[in-house]
């Protein structure tokens, strides 16, 4: 005889009684393990999506706003990266030919056949022929497109000159491609190719690279290189370093969009480097000037007017030239003018010349400025002064034969152009009329696009071959230019994808949280049913104690038995766990789609998860049983031997304990009241904490109150005997712990259901207020192509065919956008490169839009959260802010943390999160001041996102009008309330999930109530029998049983609901807090009905005849 034999004998003998315990453990295990499987499945699905979107791509070299030679792909090939494919990737607006369907946020990718080899399922045969387009399944679904469908794809032509640069023409940026769908490809065939981690598939259209290059007149250029991972052995960091080094080694001046122009003149040879981007950026300029051979910088600028006294010469080129390039030496504020200008303005050396010109502001804004120069010399209309090649290739100017053909992108007063001006252009084209020193010119005209328009080398040595010189200089330059400083990015996309999945939202934990009450209810039920069995075996406990066993050892034996049951139940639950997980995934992809926005989640069952879930369930269930046993006191052995369970025992000093319970309840109510009153400051964040804090205190208070009341009821025996209800109540008090467990289970469930309902977010509430999550704006808009005009100006509106008087009361807050990953709750992946937006803080300060949830530093009196963006931080970081939820959950950071990244010039950019906005439509991005944005992301032209104010009346018509007018740039307008609802849907869906699973827990809880009723009936069979014997009818006995247990049901629900309502009180005063009374009433009604059903079903077991038989038997 040993403990194991005892255990096996007991388990076998009491097997049937243990079914309930096993079932409880089984449910707890199924829910717990199922939640973990959901976590695995979401992560597994994200990983699968990452594999589909990247295939075998390891690293991407992204041109951002730059184009490089397609041949760079061949040059980048190495043993480490056997396959390197060039791609042009452009945002596009895709419509079906009839315009019935549209996808504003789609991508057009020009690819080679080699591209398809990198897909998870390589398939070269899908490569589109010229004139054809291949669609990813997501885009095909959006457009309802099939093979043969004709589409129009509008893309922003990658411009050599920034569309925001001075002299960049307004027109001609958009190109429309008419193509026929040749195939719709699956995700595994690269249908969802994207460099950005998101569970939402990218809307991709693929065309042949050469065809696209031809359509966009780009030559053999690309803006993206994809490198495969042929060599997996190297360390990722080393691999990245090797790629960076190879890129630097293989980078040519052609990749930098630089070109040689060589002129053979009578007395000398001149070689010049110009940029296809017109302006030479600071890094390139410096590199060129550092190269050996004494290159001279040139900055040629278009000025609006040159005047002296009352004489004017409109629209002229002025060149700033480096020392030595021209024979005349110019000092600060000195100018040399050509003979033509001298005559036109009647100027002589020593006279003063005034110049009016445009300075480049933010966006395309131009501010007219003036400078006064002293005429140092008048130079002849001959070389080297009469040199039209000093004017760079300004698009819209270089091919114009007449001044009236100019397309400059900024307003030209054609009336001001005189005949002689036109004659000058016809004779000398863009030959500068004046010259200043390079220092003077750069001080006046240097802008964010560059500080030079060319660098020149010249030689008068007849023995020196210009070809050799340029070759030599080119080698020097290529050593000096760093592609990363030009804005080229090298992204370890494979590593980033893995990190974004690993750090993604832990759905396992989330669903354990959601299932908390269900697990708790299962555990309580399991414990309750196990306790029933143990109570039934009270005399066995008594015997073991009487034979000399300690209570500890008896409990250890019982626990061992319970643990074995828990183990059995837990492992049986593993099968159910898979079904539970499948159910949850089905819910996530259908009913709760709002939380994840995708329907492509697959079930992933990992044996380690099953094992850990099973073991975890065993541990949790065993601990629960241990907790239950821990409360078993050393009751009189003689009582146990007589078969009396511990619950029936008389509590020591009941009145004292009852008094103590009531006092504790009073203190807890007081604490809850203080908490609620003290926190009544209107902050939503605080009210959530107060809700749960005060709610928990009230639940505890209720527990103590009821415990004290039941104690008093039990021992104050005389008074309650007068009515059936009184008697029923006193009977409830007889098994105090059992009654309290039932009440607690129901109260917790009711509290959670109420809590969830009360914390659902309502986007419509206060939506018109500036302080709300919508900022009081009517629309949020995003465009596929940047909008470079100012939509708050008449001219800007007119460029889209809109008129200010039609849009009265409409105003725009534009945002610059540096594309990155959506850093909001809508992205299940952890954003590795969050999207950055730049805004002029003044626009939002004036409107006092949005509210902070938390700030890094205290806001000064009258200061708005947007003021923080303009401050200068001591550590050199730039201030940024984001939605507080995005900061916490999507980025995994806190306010005050620093986001480190590389800017477009390859410099380290540190953005300190100085504030978190309260739940708002600005989720998903990090927002910095526009000035900082322009400084760090020079290549990102124009505005791609807008907050739009519009009067309430006619808002819909305004939205439609704006959408129609901006079709070419693919501006998509979102109603701000709808956008807020989309964000809220995530939280609300989670809450619904929580509520539904909590509801299931309550069903289990009410089942527990039924079990309690049955157990009580069994325990008190003799009592019922005697009552029957003295004349109680079955009906009356059932009434008594029902009254007794319905009292428990109602007390539980009242305690839970009461506590929740008390705790809700402060949240009713803040934004978004409201109680959905109707749905809550339905749930509560359901709970009451379920509880009544179980009580009634159990009470129906009470049959007088059987009772009397039992009495005879006993």
């Amino acid at each position: 005889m040993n403990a194991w034999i005892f255990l096996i004998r007991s388990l076998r003998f009491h097997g049937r009684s243990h079914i309930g315990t096993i079932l409880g453990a089984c449910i707890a295990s199924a829910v717990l393990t199922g939640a973990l499987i959901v976590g695995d499945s979401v992560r597994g699905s994200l990983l699968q999506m990452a594999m589909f979107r990247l295939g075998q791509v390891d690293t991407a070299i992204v041109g951002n706003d730059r184009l490089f030679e397609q041949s760079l792909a061949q040059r980048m090939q190495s043993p480490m990266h056997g396959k390197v494919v060039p791609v042009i990737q452009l945002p596009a607006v895709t419509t079906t030919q009839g315009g019935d369907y549209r996808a504003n946020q789609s991508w057009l990718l020009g690819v080679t056949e080699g591209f398809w080899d990198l897909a998870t399922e390589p398939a070269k045969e899908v490569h589109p022929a010229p004139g054809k387009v291949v669609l990813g399944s997501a885009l095909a679904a959006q457009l309802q497109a099939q093979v043969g469908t004709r589409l129009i794809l509008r893309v922003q032509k990658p411009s050599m000159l920034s569309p925001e640069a001075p002299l960049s023409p307004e027109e001609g940026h958009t190109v429309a491609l008419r193509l026929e769908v040749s195939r719709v490809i699956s995700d595994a065939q690269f249908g969802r190719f994207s460099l950005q981690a998101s569970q939402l598939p990218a809307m991709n259209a693929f065309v042949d690279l050469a065809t696209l290059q031809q359509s966009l007149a780009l030559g053999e250029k690309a803006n993206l290189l994809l490198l495969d991972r042929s060599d997996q052995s190297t360390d990722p960091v080393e691999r990245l370093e090797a790629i960076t080094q190879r890129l630097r080694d293989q980078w040519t001046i052609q990749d930098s969009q630089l070109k040689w122009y060589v002129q053979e003149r009578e007395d000398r040879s001149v070689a010049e480097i110009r940029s296809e981007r017109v302006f030479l950026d600071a890094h390139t300029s410096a590199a060129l000037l550092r190269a050996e051979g004494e290159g001279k910088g040139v900055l040629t600028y278009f000025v609006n007017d040159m005047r002296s006294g009352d004489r004017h010469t409109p629209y002229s080129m002025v060149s700033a030239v480096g020392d030595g390039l021209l024979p005349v030496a110019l000092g600060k504020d000195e100018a040399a003018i050509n003979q033509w200008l001298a005559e036109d303005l009647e100027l002589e050396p020593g006279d003063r010349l005034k110049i009016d010109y445009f300075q480049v502001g933010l966006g395309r804004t131009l501010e007219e400025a003036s400078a006064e120069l002293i005429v140092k010399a008048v130079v002849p209309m001959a070389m080297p002064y009469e040199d039209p090649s000093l004017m760079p290739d300004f698009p819209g100017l270089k091919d114009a034969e007449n001044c009236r053909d100019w397309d400059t992108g900024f307003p030209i007063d054609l009336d001001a152009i005189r005949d002689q001006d036109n004659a000058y252009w016809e004779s000398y084209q863009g030959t500068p009329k004046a010259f200043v020193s390079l220092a003077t010119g750069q001080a006046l005209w240097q802008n964010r696009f560059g500080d030079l328009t060319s660098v020149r080398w010249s030689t008068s040595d007849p023995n020196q071959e210009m070809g050799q010189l340029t070759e030599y200089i080119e080698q020097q330059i290529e050593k000096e230019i760093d592609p990363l400083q030009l804005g080229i990015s090298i992204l370890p996309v494979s590593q980033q994808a893995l990190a974004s999945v690993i750090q993604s939202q832990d759905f396992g934990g989330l669903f354990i949280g959601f299932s908390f009450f269900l697990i708790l209810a299962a555990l309580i039920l399991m414990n309750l049913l196990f306790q029933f069995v143990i109570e039934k075996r009270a005399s066995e406990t008594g015997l073991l104690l009487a034979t000399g066993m300690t209570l500890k050892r008896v409990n250890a034996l019982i626990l061992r038995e319970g643990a074995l049951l828990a183990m059995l139940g837990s492992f049986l639950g593993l099968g159910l766990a898979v079904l539970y997980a499948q159910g949850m995934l089905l819910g996530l992809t259908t009913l709760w789609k709002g939380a994840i926005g995708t329907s492509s989640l697959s079930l992933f069952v990992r044996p380690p998860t099953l094992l850990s879930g099973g073991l975890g369930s065993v541990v949790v269930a065993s601990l629960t049983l241990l907790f239950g046993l821990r409360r078993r006191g050393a009751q009189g052995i003689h009582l146990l031997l007589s078969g009396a369970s511990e619950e029936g025992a008389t509590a020591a000093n009941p009145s004292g304990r009852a008094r103590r319970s009531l006092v504790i309840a009073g203190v807890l109510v007081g604490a809850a009241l203080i908490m609620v009153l003290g926190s009544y400051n209107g902050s939503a964040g605080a009210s959530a904490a107060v809700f749960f804090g005060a709610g928990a205190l009230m639940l505890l208070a209720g527990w103590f109150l009821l415990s004290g009341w039941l104690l008093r009821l039990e021992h104050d025996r005389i008074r309650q005997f007068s009515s059936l209800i009184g008697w029923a109540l006193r009977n409830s008090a007889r098994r105090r712990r059992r009654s309290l467990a039932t009440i607690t289970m129901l109260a917790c469930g009711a509290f959670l259901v109420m809590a969830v309902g009360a914390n659902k977010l309502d986007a419509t509430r206060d939506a018109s207020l500036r302080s709300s999550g919508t900022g009081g704006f009517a629309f949020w808009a995003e465009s596929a192509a940047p909008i470079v005009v100012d939509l708050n100006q008449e001219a800007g509106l007119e460029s889209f065919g809109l008129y200010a008087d039609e849009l009265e009361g409409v105003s725009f807050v534009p945002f610059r956008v540096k594309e990155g990953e959506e850093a909001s709750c809508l992205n299940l992946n952890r954003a590795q490169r969050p999207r950055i937006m730049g805004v002029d803080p003044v626009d939002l300060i004036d409107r006092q839009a949005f509210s902070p949830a938390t700030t890094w530093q205290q806001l000064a009196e009258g200061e708005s959260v947007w003021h923080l963006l303009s401050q200068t931080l001591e550590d050199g970081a730039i201030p940024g802010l984001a939605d507080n939820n995005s900061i916490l959950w999507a980025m995994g950071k806190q306010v005050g943390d620093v986001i480190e990244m590389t800017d477009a010039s390859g410099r380290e950019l540190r953005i300190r999160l100085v504030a978190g906005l309260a739940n708002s439509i600005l989720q998903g991005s990090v927002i910095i001041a526009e000035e900082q944005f322009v400084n760090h992301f020079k290549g990102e032209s124009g505005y791609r996102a807008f907050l739009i104010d519009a009067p309430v009346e006619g808002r819909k018509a305004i939205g439609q009008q704006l959408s129609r007018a901006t079709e070419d740039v693919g501006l998509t307008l979102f109603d701000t309330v709808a956008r807020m609802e989309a964000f809220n849907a995530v939280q609300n869906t989670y809450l619904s999930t929580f509520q539904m699973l909590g509801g299931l827990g309550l069903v289990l809880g009410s089942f527990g109530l039924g079990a309690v009723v049955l157990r009580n009936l069994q325990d008190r069979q003799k009592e019922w029998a005697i009552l029957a014997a003295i004349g109680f009818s079955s009906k009356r006995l059932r009434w008594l049983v029902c009254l007794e247990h319905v009292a428990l049901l109602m007390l539980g629900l009242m305690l839970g609901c009461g506590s929740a309502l008390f705790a809700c009180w402060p949240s009713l005063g803040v934004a978004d807090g409201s109680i959905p009374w109707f749905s809550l009433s339905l749930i509560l009604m359901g709970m009451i009905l379920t509880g009544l059903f179980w009580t009634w079903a159990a009470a129906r077991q009470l049959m007088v005849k059987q009772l009397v038989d039992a009495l005879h038997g006993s």
Partner: protein
Amino acid sequence: MSLIIPEWFHSSDLPLGVRFFLIQQAIGGHDGSMQSEEPLILLDQVSKAYGQVDQVASTLVLDAVDLSVDSGTTTAIIGPSGSGKSSLLNLIGALDQPSSGKVTVAGKDLAELNENALARFRRQTIGFVFQSHHLLPQLSVLENVLIGLLSEPNSGLQVGEVEDRAKRLLDRVGLSHRLSHRPSQLSGGERQRVAVVRAVLFQPRLLLADEPTGALDHRASHLLANLLMELNQEENMTLLMVTHSRELADLTETILVLKGGKLAPLPSV
């Protein structure tokens, strides 16, 4: 220090190992000396009330009871229902605590023992026979007898030896053919005999029997009564029982009457 080896050590059919174990336990528990010269049971002004003493509803069942029982004797306590006989037995067997007074058994003041010591005391000193047999339904006859082995798994007892003794005792009470039967397969008398064997397996110094024949018919009662008396002789254990049965009480050396919470010798007729 002189060590008096008790007679039962030589006469008992307990395995030698068990006998040494019991001797060691007895020495260890009593300041190193045997207490055989003192009364085995000594009750001094013991009272027992149920319910809160300060409350009207409380019931005094034992009222300042004094009792002294010598080792090796047989004593019966008789009295009407509700007179507190079982309560008295529960106090002596350390199954319950007195409301006041002092209970000393085998030289130990039970009030001074903590839970573990009380358990050890019950294991080593007391054997119980209840009116209801309290056999565990899931165990066989032999396993029910051996249930005490679970009390202290690492006690040093040789399980095999204990099992042999259990079988001998069951043979002694005529149940050798029922070793693997379940209690539900036994008659009332057989169940009670199993309970007696379980109580005497480790040869306790004191056998407490609470209405041991209460649930048995006349013949079974007679057999059980004889068995108890024989065991008293053979195992040299003190027998204290409470009973309604005058016939059973007459078999004992001393008969005491409990009435109105007071204990008194049986008045001579």
